[in-house]
């Protein structure tokens, strides 16, 4: 290997070897990243190409018929909306309160550490264990039966960490000087939070809520035994009714029902993943827009 001239310095063979290694590893890691991401693209293309033929106006507005081998997904769509709405009503206030406590009140002590550990664990406990909890607590102990309420509360507990973590982040992004300015005018802590901290972080909180909706839409195991029904061609009339749901419907038509035409489950999968990815993209785009808008 010949020594090269780098602006007056003699590059030693060892340096050149290192340069080569550097390029090699850079390409290797890039390749690994691409291999990790490529499946998403391929999967999306497959779902679109195989699921698109099933989509039609009737697919969205009709009941499943003929042992779920024909017809649409209307009750499952409506059911998912119910479940998500009730779950949000339960988890958003609680999650935002928790985030306000952690960001604005909590000092770095044992209790705060315990709370943080609990949040990590809530997010880490297997979804089927959340399902068992939902059965034990909401279906049996509180006597809600298998209902939208029980399913939504189970999901609310499960997705609580999503709201807490994203809200805490957006609260902490509000500069400390804003709070100090407000305190120095004689405002209480709560006045400061309500008039200064929350208005300056509300859009960040919203992106977290969108993210939570997307998680809630896709979860299956926690609602299987707490409120979602395999087949129920009626719309729920209240929170104590059972309902169909998109995620469970995908499981049912792809594993439990015989003689389903191939494009039907692909259509259901396409609608489900479409909902999730659109919600996520909105959340991400909103976050980036906010970052661009920030004046501090």
């Amino acid at each position: 290997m010949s020594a090269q001239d780098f602006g007056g310095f003699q590059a030693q063979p060892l340096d050149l070897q290192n340069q080569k290694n550097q390029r090699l590893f850079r390409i290797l890691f890039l390749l690994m990243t691409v291999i990790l991401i490529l499946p998403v693209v391929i999967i999306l293309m497959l779902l679109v190409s195989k699921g698109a033929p099933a989509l039609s106006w009737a697919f969205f507005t009709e009941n499943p018929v003929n042992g779920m081998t024909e017809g649409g997904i209307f009750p499952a769509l409506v059911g998912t909306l119910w479940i998500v709405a009730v779950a949000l009503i339960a988890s958003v206030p609680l999650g935002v309160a928790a985030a306000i406590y952690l960001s604005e009140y909590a000092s770095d002590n044992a209790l705060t550490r315990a709370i943080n550990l609990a949040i990590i664990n809530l997010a880490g406990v297997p979804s089927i264990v959340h399902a068992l909890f939902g059965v034990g607590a909401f279906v049996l102990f509180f006597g809600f039966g298998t209902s939208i309420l029980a399913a939504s509360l189970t999901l609310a507990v499960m997705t609580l960490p999503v709201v807490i973590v994203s809200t805490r982040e957006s609260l902490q992004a509000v500069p400390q000087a804003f709070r100090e300015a407000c305190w120095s005018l004689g405002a209480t802590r709560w006045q400061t939070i309500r008039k200064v901290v929350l208005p300056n972080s509300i859009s960040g909180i919203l992106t977290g809520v969108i993210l939570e909706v997307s998680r809630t839409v896709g979860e299956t195991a926690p609602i299987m035994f707490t409120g979602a029904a395999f087949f129920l061609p009626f719309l729920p009339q209240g929170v104590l009714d059972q309902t169909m749901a998109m995620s469970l419907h995908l499981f049912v038509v792809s594993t439990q029902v015989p003689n389903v035409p191939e494009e039907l489950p692909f259509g259901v999968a396409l609608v489900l993943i479409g909902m999730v990815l659109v919600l996520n993209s909105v959340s991400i785009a909103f976050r980036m827009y906010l970052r661009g808008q920030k004046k501090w």
Partner: protein
Amino acid sequence: MSDKVGGVVRHSVEDKIDAAWIWDRIARALVFVGGISAILFIIAIFIFVAQQGLGFALFELDAATFFTSPAWRPTSEPEPQFGALALIAGTASVTGFAMLVAVPFSLGAAIYIGEFATGRTREVLKVLVELLAAIPSVVWGFIGLTIMNPLIIDLFDVPVGLTILNAGLILGLMAAPIMTTIAEDALKAVPEGYREAAEAMGATRWQVIRQVVLPSAKNGLVAAILLGVGRGFGETMAVLMASGHSVNLPTSPFDSVRALTATIAAELGETARGSEHYQVLFSLGILLFLVTFVINLLADILVRKGKGRRA
């Protein structure tokens, strides 16, 4: 309350009780309840799962049989058998295979995104990883069932495609985003000064990464892997749909297995409340809860240790 100091009435702010003060107290109490709710929920989860399954696990379940017998026949008459070895082996093999695939790729991706990529490329890659994490597990299961299954049968000329290989690959893709994100956080937490010092001595980017950044971020990287293991271990729908769901002590990646989580999901709906079968499923739930709790605790300790050492 106020007191007169040299002719000036001075209000002591601390002692003033008015509407704002009362609202402040109420708000403080309410957000505190929100704050500790996470702890209450974790305790409640354990209590409610244990309430249905702990008694059975302690007094009626033979621990030796449970952990050593592969015979899972919860409905056989007259004597049901509750051996979970095959289920544990199923979960372990699928999670192990997933980690084999996901760990190198996730760490590689984290290094590329965190240390090599810049500007727009970096943003785009991060968004794509986030979207990968967003795909619901039932959709992954569906992909295993309808796309991977025929693919594996064709490629390897095997009779069944719903195997450790199938579920492991899918689980690997599912666990990869969380590992990539946490690992990248760990890399980012290494102070810029460390890199600059090494670069000032003429090190290339790769030398900096290998000899400075990686050793310094070691704890965080191990935590990332642990959280990935936890994710794979607890995954339910995808494993249920893609692993073949047959009770089996696996000997090759082309065997079908059944996982702990999938067993609960598949059988809970068919059991009578309070029956032995019902209770043993909750006992499995306790096992799952405890294992993930330990994994998360370890990861948290590691992350904390990594931060503490540097500060």
